[in-house]
């Protein structure tokens, strides 16, 4: 199981800029829920609170009010029921790819032979069997993020939380990783919440899209594309893709000031 519920989640930041104190309402009574096995995309302009929402769900930031629950249990700090994939992978530079995946498992208390076997299994899952002894600086951007995904998946969390995981990659690498993510999802059935600023990515991958603006949920939209989606190229050509993409685009731009 892996149901996630945001219930009236608010988050205020206090920033000090040139001696002036600013209050930033990063999240304003955010409520939505994610069903078990579902992929939900959080999208919106930068500063809309999508990353904050993800960090609150992970337990890296605390909400000012409201709560997030995973399978009914309130989130209070980080836990092994959630796995985080960071924007720039954030691998530990002194560890090999395999050791990076093992790190997460060790923190879960795994020792001995299963530790290595499990880490190898998940590196295999993301297609990095042959590069397991390389250090992060010897890996390409796409490979690093694959290790980041393997590290989060290996602890077998109920929910995978991804913060713009493919945002820093070139277009081609991004496309192949998007396809792989869908493949991994089909095989593991994990609940996935991912943050993106890429319209295409949101529509291609997600079952539902949460459009955020100024810290609020603007709209929650269903993506009427069937699963599995083995060929994203074909998906892109469907009228449903174009239509959904346009609807999301409208939702993001509605009421926006003209620049």
């Amino acid at each position, binding site marked *: 199981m892996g149901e996630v519920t945001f219930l009236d989640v608010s988050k205020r930041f206090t920033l000090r800029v040139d001696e002036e104190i600013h209050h930033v309402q990063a999240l304003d009574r955010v409520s939505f829920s994610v069903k078990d096995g579902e992929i939900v995309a959080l999208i919106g302009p930068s500063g809309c609170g999508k990353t904050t929402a993800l960090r609150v769900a992970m337990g*890296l930031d605390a909400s000012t009010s409201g709560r997030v629950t995973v399978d009914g249990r309130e989130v209070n700090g*980080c836990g092994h029921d959630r796995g*985080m994939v960071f924007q720039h992978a954030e691998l530990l530079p002194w560890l090999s790819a395999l050791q990076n995946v093992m790190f*997460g498992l060790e*923190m879960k208390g795994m020792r001995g032979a299963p530790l290595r076997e499990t880490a190898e299994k998940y590196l295999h899952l993301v297609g990095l069997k042959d590069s397991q002894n390389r*250090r992060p600086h010897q890996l390409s951007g796409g490979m690093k993020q694959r290790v980041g995904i393997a590290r989060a998946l290996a602890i077998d969390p109920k929910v995978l939380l991804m913060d713009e995981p493919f945002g820093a990659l070139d277009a081609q690498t991004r496309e192949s990783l998007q396809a792989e993510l869908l493949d991994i999802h089909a095989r593991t059935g994990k609940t996935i919440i991912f943050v993106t600023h890429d319209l295409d990515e949101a529509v291609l991958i997600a079952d539902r899209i949460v459009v955020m603006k100024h810290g609020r949920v603007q709209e929650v939209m269903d993506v009427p594309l069937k699963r599995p989606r083995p060929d994203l190229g074909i998906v892109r050509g469907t009228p449903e893709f174009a239509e959904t993409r346009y609807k999301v685009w409208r939702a993001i731009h509605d009421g926006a000031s003209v620049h």
Partner: protein
Amino acid sequence: MVDIANRNEKAAAAEEAGPAERKPWPRWVITLASITVALGLWEIFGRQVNPVFGSYPSAIAVAFWELAVSGQLWSALYDSLRPFLLGYALAILFGVPLGLLIGGFRVAEAALGIYVTAGYAMPLVALVPLLILWLGLGFAVKVAVVFLMALFPITINTWLGVVAVPKTLIEVGKSFVAPDLVILRRIVLPATLPYIMAGVRLAVGRAVVAMVIAEFFTTISGLGAVIINSANNFDTATMFVPIIILMLMAVGLNWLIGWVERRVAPWQAEIAGRDRE
């Protein structure tokens, strides 16, 4: 037009061939050449000066030979190295954990940071008489002086290193529910290693100076004694022998620390692209 095009092509070809043929001088060749020139100039100009006011390499070499043969040099070196190495090792042993503590915990930083910052600027020479009152004139006071001089650069560098650890790496630890001490040992410590090693290097120079100060102000002994005694006899060439040995020792230690660094933190040199040199 054709001419210009031709010339450009030739220039391009020459450029392509260039880097392959022009191999850069190895570092040691450059260093050796620099030392040769410096020693040569010193020899030439040093000979013009009254031997009480200055000396020159060949005279120093002769003095070195005499000290070495008489055995005086080796016993002095032994006397100096013992407190030096012990004080220096203790400074690393205490300085690194102290820096980790101050950098890693807000309370420790607020409570102890000011002592370390102030301690770094402490005029230790002025405190030596007090240290003598506490610890006597022997071995212990020398160790203490070396320890106090070497401790602060190591602690401060470690502290700065901890502060510079990217927040996101610590969040990786947190997101996998690593306890604070595990984050400190498995993320903060390795990420701080390059800073620690830089502090350990800086401390070498200060420890050498501290050792000589200790030998001047406590029981006159070791290499410091050789310096003082020969200066009192206006034997400037002999005075330079321990000074040069101390400098060579610092260079050697620095090299050794660099070697250790490449062993314990090889990723650092690889990332900076220095591993192929």
